[in-house]
């Protein structure tokens, strides 16, 4: 039987005796269902804005405080210090300050609003396949089994852990963030200051943010100090000058040391291709045994920096703005006829339907 001899028949036009009559079936099928996007049914604890274009952790942490501090300090700088310094020093000061300020804000928003490298959870078929493999090769001496898999990376034995939430073996350097309830690739840490996890995709934004922020705070601190020094020289004394800009000075003084320290720490991490998570746990420091070195490091500072900061930008794996397939978005059981997806299915529809028609025609002619 060859389907090519028959014409395509619309399956929805055919009588289907297998269906039981539904209450108002015609109304339900004709009702237009607005297609839902995948971010609306995302299982992790994240918040989405602008129809899935922007994402953050559910609890924003102290992100508003971060933005507030930067805005307040910079505004005070532009209002109080710039006019004086432009008059007494140079016009470049507000220009440099402005560039640094814009740079800091852009990188902060990119760190906060970008997908850090979240791994989508395993589909039910995948999870069943993994379970089957664990049962086949599982170690019966452990109950319940710790569920680890060992792989060899650059002659180092790495243990991959099974994630019970995401139902998959975590790739190397991936960790499950309990605050966001997601597995994140190359997980660094969850930063409350930016209100998001820092992982593979947004680490370069985070690093650029803290480096530019340390430049900005150091710059403002320097300008404020110069301003005070010049005013104190002017004759009224240091104490009087201090009274004029206490807030700015306080914020800058305390943040300069902490931000500079953080930048220095992350520069060390970038140069040795480590994550904060690995450094804190001491995964490669040799505590657990001899000869344990970082298998991901290229043994060259320059190459490490380039591979962390200048590698091609990986894509987002969670496809936030994609549309859900129609049968997944429907809450009720699938009573609609699915549009045929493959060619051989079309052939079968056509053959079956046509043979029914042939039978009906021949039987009526026989009468």
């Amino acid at each position, binding site marked *: 039987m060859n389907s090519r001899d028959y014409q395509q028949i619309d399956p929805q036009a055919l009588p289907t005796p297998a269906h039981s009559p539904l209450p108002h079936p015609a109304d339900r099928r004709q009702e237009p269902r607005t297609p839902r996007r995948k971010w609306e049914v995302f299982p992790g604890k994240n918040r989405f804005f602008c129809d899935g274009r922007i994402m953050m952790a559910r609890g924003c942490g102290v992100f508003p405080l971060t933005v507030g501090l930067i805005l307040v300090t910079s505004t005070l700088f532009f209002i109080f210090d710039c006019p004086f310094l432009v008059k007494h020093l140079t016009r470049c000061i507000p220009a440099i300050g402005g560039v640094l300020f814009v740079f800091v804000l852009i990188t902060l928003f990119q760190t906060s609003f970008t997908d850090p490298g979240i791994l989508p959870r395993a589909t039910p078929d*995948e999870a069943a396949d993994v379970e089957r493999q664990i049962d086949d090769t599982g170690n019966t001496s452990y109950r319940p089994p710790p569920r680890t898999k060992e792989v060899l990376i650059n002659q180092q034995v790495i243990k991959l852990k099974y994630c019970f939430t995401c139902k998959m073996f975590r790739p190397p350097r991936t960790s499950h963030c309990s605050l966001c309830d997601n597995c994140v690739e*190359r997980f660094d840490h969850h930063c409350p200051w930016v209100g998001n996890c820092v992982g593979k995709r947004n680490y370069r934004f985070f690093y650029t943010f803290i480096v530019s922020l340390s430049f900005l705070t150091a710059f403002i601190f320097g300008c404020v100090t110069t301003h005070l020094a010049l005013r104190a020289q002017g004759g009224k004394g240091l104490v009087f000058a201090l009274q004029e800009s206490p807030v700015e000075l306080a914020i800058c003084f305390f943040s300069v040391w902490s931000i500079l320290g953080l930048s220095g720490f992350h520069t060390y991490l970038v140069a040795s291709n480590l994550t904060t998570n690995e450094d804190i746990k001491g995964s490669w420091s040799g505590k657990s045994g001899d000869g344990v070195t970082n298998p991901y490091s290229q043994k060259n500072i320059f190459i490490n920096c380039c591979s962390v900061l200048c590698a091609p930008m990986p894509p987002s794996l969670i496809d936030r703005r994609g549309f859900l397939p129609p049968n997944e978005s429907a809450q009720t059981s699938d009573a609609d006829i*699915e549009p045929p997806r493959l060619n051989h299915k079309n052939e079968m529809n056509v053959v079956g339907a046509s043979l029914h028609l042939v039978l009906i025609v021949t039987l009526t002619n026989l009468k």
Partner: protein
Amino acid sequence: MFLARVFINLPNVLLFQTHSLQDLQQPAVSSKVFIQRDYSSGTICKFQTKFPSELESRLDKQQFEETMQTLNNLYAEAEKLGGKSYLEGCLACLTAYTIFLCMETHYEKVLKKIARYIKDQNEKIYAPRGLLLTDPIERGLRVVEITIFEDRTISSGR
């Protein structure tokens, strides 16, 4: 004329009469095979090339290995560290990464190439054998999913 047609068609008609139209429209998936990632070279995207036993009856080992090797090479090209990626990275850094909002990254270009390659392989090699390769990007680059469809050839009436 009619009687002849009835006698020729009757066996086929009876055969198909047992299937309701609903069954014929559903995809006849018999099983799915998952090719896992190969982490022996680190965290780069690479899939195992070991031939799964479930596909032995449908596909040549050599064809499968060729498909997987080409996929691995394409992913390696996407993640390659070279002069071009460094330039892209430095330029992006200078513009505070705003160029990522405007232009397509190197990785995304290669992903499109991979999608075209998988579609091509499905049309030429896998679909005629009742198999379907799913693009790994739809599974978060965790697995290559191969769906095995039931072998319901229509020629059973002859």
